[in-house]
């Protein structure tokens, strides 16, 4: 671990929460958001708070700040900051604590900055307010702080408005703002969730350095186990407003002693595993609705080790797992469950990939005025295969999907589906056969279904529209059959989307896509908006459906773990161009394209057994309206050959059959690249 825990003899914790309870009052009565929360945070310590959405982790941060809005209130417990009860402070005292002693960093940097004040103005008011320094002095400090958060061109930054900066820059500004008053405690509420992976890696790196440099204590809130593992010393896993497992990060990851923690871990695809070697296991059931917390263990109804009469009785206390490290778990059966048992092995799943090309893309280009969203894409997709398009936002992967679906038309080049040219054919002019054989699954579960129509009606409309069935009774029968296939109860046919959870909606989306027995399904980030435990279920469902129907799957994602997990072949895109493509194992192992390498290194890893090499990308992603000449990645590439990379378009170097890398680097150089990941027992220059 790079963040080595510097234990001090100072006994007073920076922050201590004792039996903290927070309740929100709503129209349907009071809803407890946090119940009996305990936390001790020592000086210089970084504590991770992990859990899925709705588990109360953000509420804790806001409660510490005493900023719960009109509906939220603290119903019990204490929050001690350096031994002082924050709950007893009056408004003026509170103001002195806020920003000066405790600072917060937010999930959406853009929304957190005032759009009509310059960055400088927003920065300097912190020291001016808390330390009553002069404007000049405050400006000097702010300017210096910008350098420490590694923002170049600080003077320009100071004069800029938030909208003129990129998301990564904005988050650095927010961090700088938080650090300006040298707070003792930093609350980070999902600080990287809204950012791209490579940007996230930079921010995480910065946060790690800051905590080392300033000795600030941190409460790091995230849904991402990997991030917590990489940034924190201790962690708390939250479920339904309660901590279920607390301990040193290493201890928790190596000895998970709560079924929920284990479930979470099992639901995350690992960069080292694919669908055939380690299938994902979803957590059964759903998160209970707020206010409907079951008696006893909140996780009980979803737990495989549930024992009636024990798990659903009374209050479950935190049981010690390891007294030395303070590792505790809220499980009554912590000593009974066989924690080492492997999940039952699944049947070996294999896909019948035929070498028959279904979708063929060649030199496809799409320009919106100046912006070239796609530039000369060429690749093949074979029948029954899963091909993943990977890249960060703005790389043009969604544009390609829109061209394929006929929602926009290409500027030049061709896309064929079963030898039918589609690049210039809008969907309204396509034959019913083409439409039927090409369907799509969308990213946002809250958007994918029309809120006004029942689930049944929406699926039925597809069946009717695509001409699969004409008889009303048979349509109805087919609807119910599809619901069965995506493992949704039949009653859902009469429900409206708002009565469904995100995962359920995505199941309906899958049912709708597969209703017409399509040859190709395009899935645009189908799981990225879902909680971890649901992601796994949906991913598995997708794989099942694909296998059952023999469908070709075009999977668009920014999440390399998921791609690694389910794709047969991968196409890596950057700024509208393909950087690398090949079979999954080939892409995820050297030789890498420098961008692929950076992308892989940026992924936070939750697996204790994996070690990761540090590769950081410099600079910002250039604007798509002014792509750099030569290799588009050249502005951020650490291997850049000046005079070549930024002048000439890179050649495609073929390494294995179909494994192509668009790079100027000499073949030998590429072949000599080290893998990004290693097993833990190996070398030491890997970070973990």
């Amino acid at each position, binding site marked *: 671990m790079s963040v080595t825990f510097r234990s001090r003899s100072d006994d007073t914790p920076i922050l201590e929460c004792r039996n903290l309870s927070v309740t929100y009052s709503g129209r349907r009565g009071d809803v407890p958001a946090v119940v009996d929360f305990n936390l001790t945070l020592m000086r210089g310590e970084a504590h991770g708070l992990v859990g899925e959405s709705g588990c109360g982790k953000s509420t804790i941060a806001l409660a510490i700040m005493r900023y719960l809005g009109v509906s939220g209130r603290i119903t019990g417990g204490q929050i001690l900051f350096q031994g002082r009860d924050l709950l007893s402070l009056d408004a003026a005292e509170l103001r002195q604590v806020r920003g000066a002693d405790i600072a917060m960093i937010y999930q959406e940097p853009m929304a*957190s900055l005032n759009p009509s004040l310059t960055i400088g103005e927003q920065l300097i008011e912190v020291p001016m*307010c808390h330390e009553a320094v002069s404007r000049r002095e405050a400006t000097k400090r702010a300017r210096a702080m910008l350098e420490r958060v590694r923002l170049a061109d600080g003077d320009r930054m100071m004069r800029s408005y938030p909208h003129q900066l990129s998301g990564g820059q904005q988050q650095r500004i927010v961090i700088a703002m938080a650090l300006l008053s040298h707070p003792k405690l930093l609350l980070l509420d999902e600080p990287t969730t809204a950012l791209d992976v490579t940007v996230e890696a930079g921010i995480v790196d910065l946060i790690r350095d800051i905590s080392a440099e300033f000795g600030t204590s941190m409460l790091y809130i995230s849904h991402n186990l990997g991030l917590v593992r990489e940034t924190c010393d201790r962690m708390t896993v939250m479920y339904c407003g309660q901590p279920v497992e607390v301990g040193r990060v290493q201890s928790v990851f190596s000895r998970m002693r709560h079924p929920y923690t284990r479930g979470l871990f099992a639901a995350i695809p690992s960069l080292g595993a694919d669908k055939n070697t380690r299938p994902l296991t979803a957590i059964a059931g759903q998160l209970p609705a707020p206010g409907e917390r079951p008696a006893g263990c909140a996780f009980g109804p979803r737990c495989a080790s549930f024992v009636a009469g024990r798990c659903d009785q009374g209050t479950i206390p935190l049981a010690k797992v390891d007294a030395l490290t303070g590792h505790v778990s809220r499980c009554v059966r912590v000593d009974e469950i066989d924690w080492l048992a492997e999940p039952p092995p699944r049947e070996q799943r294999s896909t019948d990939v035929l070498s028959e090309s279904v979708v063929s893309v060649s030199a496809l280009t799409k320009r919106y005025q100046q912006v070239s969203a796609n530039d000369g894409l060429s690749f093949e997709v074979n029948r029954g295969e899963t091909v993943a398009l990977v890249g960060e936002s703005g790389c043009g992967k969604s544009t390609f999907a829109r061209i394929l679906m006929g929602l926009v038309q290409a500027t030049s080049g061709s896309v064929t589906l079963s030898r039918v040219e589609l690049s210039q054919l809008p969907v309204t002019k396509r034959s019913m056969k083409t439409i039927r054989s090409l369907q799509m699954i969308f990213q946002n579960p809250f958007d994918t279904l029309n809120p006004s129509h029942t689930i049944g009606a929406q699926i039925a409309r597809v069946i009717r529209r695509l001409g699969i069935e004409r008889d009303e009774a048979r349509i109805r029968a087919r609807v119910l059959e599809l619901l069965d296939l995506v493992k949704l109860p039949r009653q859902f046919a009469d429900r409206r989307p708002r009565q469904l959870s995100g995962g359920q909606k995505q199941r309906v989306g899958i049912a709708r896509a597969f209703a017409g027995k399509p040859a190709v399904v395009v899935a645009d980030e189908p799981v990225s908006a879902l909680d971890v435990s649901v992601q796994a279920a949906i991913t598995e469902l997708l794989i099942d459906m694909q296998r059952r129907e023999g469908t070709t799957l075009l999977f668009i994602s920014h999440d390399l773990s998921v791609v690694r997990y389910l794709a047969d072949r991968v196409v890596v895109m950057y700024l509208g161009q393909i950087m690398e493509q090949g079979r999954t194992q080939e892409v995820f192992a050297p030789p890498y394209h420098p961008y692929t390498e950076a992308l892989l290194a940026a992924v936070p890893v939750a697996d204790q057994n994996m070690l990761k090499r540090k590769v950081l990308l410099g600079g910002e992603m250039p604007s798509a309206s002014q792509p750099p000449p030569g290799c588009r990645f050249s502005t951020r590439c650490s291997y850049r050959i000046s005079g070549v990379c930024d002048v000439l378009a890179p050649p495609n170097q073929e390494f294995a059959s179909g494994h192509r890398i668009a790079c100027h680097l000499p073949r030998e150089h590429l072949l000599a690249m080290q893998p990004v990941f290693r097993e833990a027992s190996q070398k030491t220059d890997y970070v973990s």
Partner: protein
Amino acid sequence: MRHLVIRRVIQTLLIMLTVSALLFAVFDSDQFRKKIAVAELGNFGAATLSDSDYQAWIVSKGLDQSFPARYVTWLNHVVHGDLGVSIEKDVAVSTLLKESLSSTAVLAFYVFLIMIPVSLMLGVLAGMKEGSILDRVISVIAVFTTSIPQIATAALLTVVLALGLRWVPTKSAMIDGFSFRELLLPLLTILIYEIGYLVRMTRSAMADVMSSQYIRTALLKGLPYRQVVLKHALRNALVVPVTLILLELTGLLSQVVVVEVFFQYHGFGRMLFDAANFGDIQVIQAATLVAVCVAVASQLLSDIAYVLLNPRLRVA
């Protein structure tokens, strides 16, 4: 930013051209022309206007040209300030407009003078703490005042202030010259609605801003509440009200019709109303044109103000 403004200016010009063409076309019919002819030839009724006289008049006026030529001629006149002559009042329309617009401008001046500070202040106070007692009281009053149609406001104010308390005269013809006492009823009538409307808009803008994340950031930075409101919130919350205030110039042109007619105040609205009643074509045409000019200009100003107040648009 310059690009945005230029684009808006061009759009505005295009709209003005279209509106002027429309207005010209609408009043370019035989029926209306005959009326002007009758008036200009000084005859008592259209019945006595012989066809030959009429045709001669048309030729003398150059109205026998093609439509586009006539339009261009007319537009040329308009641009040079020749808006025709009022049939009813025997005065050049431009003179009439100048007088009536200046009377209305006096009214408008006082409206804005009072409306802007009062409504912005009340709106900000209400929106600052959504759901507080102050907010509820202000909001409820605002809903009421925006629900009373102006004729009802005018009637009720007359009943209370003029008939009941006898503080002000019932009418505002200002026959002995300008009198603030007489201006009071029309002024209040407009203000009651306008302030309510603007308070509601300011309140919701302020409430939106106060619930935004950057206000949370500012508060959690430990800044004093006053500073958060004055420095962080107002700047963003007032963008919409300011643009709305400029747009209200248009709204005012509508409202003065009712108010001026009710209180017999000699302004633009009254003039337009009289002209409409009399069928004073050239006055209607010119007044509409001027009204549209003012409206379009206020829309343009409002858009430009929006761009200027919004750093996102100002600093591209």
